């Protein structure tokens, strides 16, 4: 597992270079096994950079596509609105179809990560200065996948 993580880290390093802050988990909030924390960081970066690069492969790697769901809270003239996206495959297809993606190296930051029993996790993520994301992750077959995403427009 450690070897795999080392390889993943090396492969992904160039993509992460411009977004080092995304790995800045508060020390006092770290919980769980170090290998799990590192693996979850890779998944979160796949999600964040996957949108940034409109990279379907990275997004597919990050999410449990067939089962994941997303809920968003967006600002409107009336105050705010909650919207549910229950077909994650359609959401990912939309992200991946962006013909003018912003690219990797965007500003993102893991604000908090909690892991229980090495199999279930929740991450609070700052998505630029636009959103807070809550991502819950499940480990199946040794791989962490995003199960739910909730975003709050700041």
């Amino acid at each position: 597992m450690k070897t795999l993580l080392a390889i993943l880290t090396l492969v992904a390093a160039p993509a992460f270079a411009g977004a080092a802050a995304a790995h800045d988990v508060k020390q006092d909030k770290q919980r769980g096994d170090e290998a799990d924390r590192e693996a979850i960081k890779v998944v979160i970066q796949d999600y964040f950079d996957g949108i940034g690069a409109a990279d379907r492969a990275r997004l597919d790697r990050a999410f449990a596509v067939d089962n994941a769901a997303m809920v968003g809270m967006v600002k409107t003239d009336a105050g705010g609105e909650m919207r549910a996206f229950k077909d994650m495959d359609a959401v990912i297809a939309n992200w991946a179809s962006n013909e003018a993606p912003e690219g990797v190296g965007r500003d993102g930051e893991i604000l908090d990560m909690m892991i229980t029993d090495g199999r279930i996790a929740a991450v609070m993520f700052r998505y630029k200065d636009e959103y807070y994301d809550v991502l819950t992750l499940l480990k199946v077959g040794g791989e962490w996948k995003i199960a739910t995403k909730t975003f709050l427009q700041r």
Partner: protein
Amino acid sequence: MKKLFFSLLAVASFAASAPAAFAGTEKTDAAATDGKSDAKAIKAAVYDYFHGQGQGSAERLNRAFVAEHASMVGVVKNDAGEPAVRSWKDMGEVLANWSQNPTPDAPDRDGEILDMHVQDGRIATVMFRSRDRFYDALTLAKVDGEWRIIAKAFVLQ
């Protein structure tokens, strides 16, 4: 990005929506009073879910969840006995099922909040131990001043 986002919203015509008030002055977690108040309200929502499930109380469950928007995703054993991800996208149906099946040990079931993180006074995560059977990762949002669960992920213990 905003253009993409809103086009996504437009395309996602399958998604239900309902007016709610999320906007407002951003608060810092340093506001201790607000923090304590939020933690108390979040705890109440989590136990409305847990005891509502145990008691088969549709009222408590629907107070805890935003049923029309929430989803549940979990790791369960498949037909081959192997761990597999499964999802429940109709939370209203899930709550209805729970309401009809109270558990014998309600209301004295053993549940525990293991961890909680509140961001900006408006969105939160809770890690919860549901008896000796499940671990839940719950996502909550403050909707019209009330903390409600909008996503649940779980694993069998």
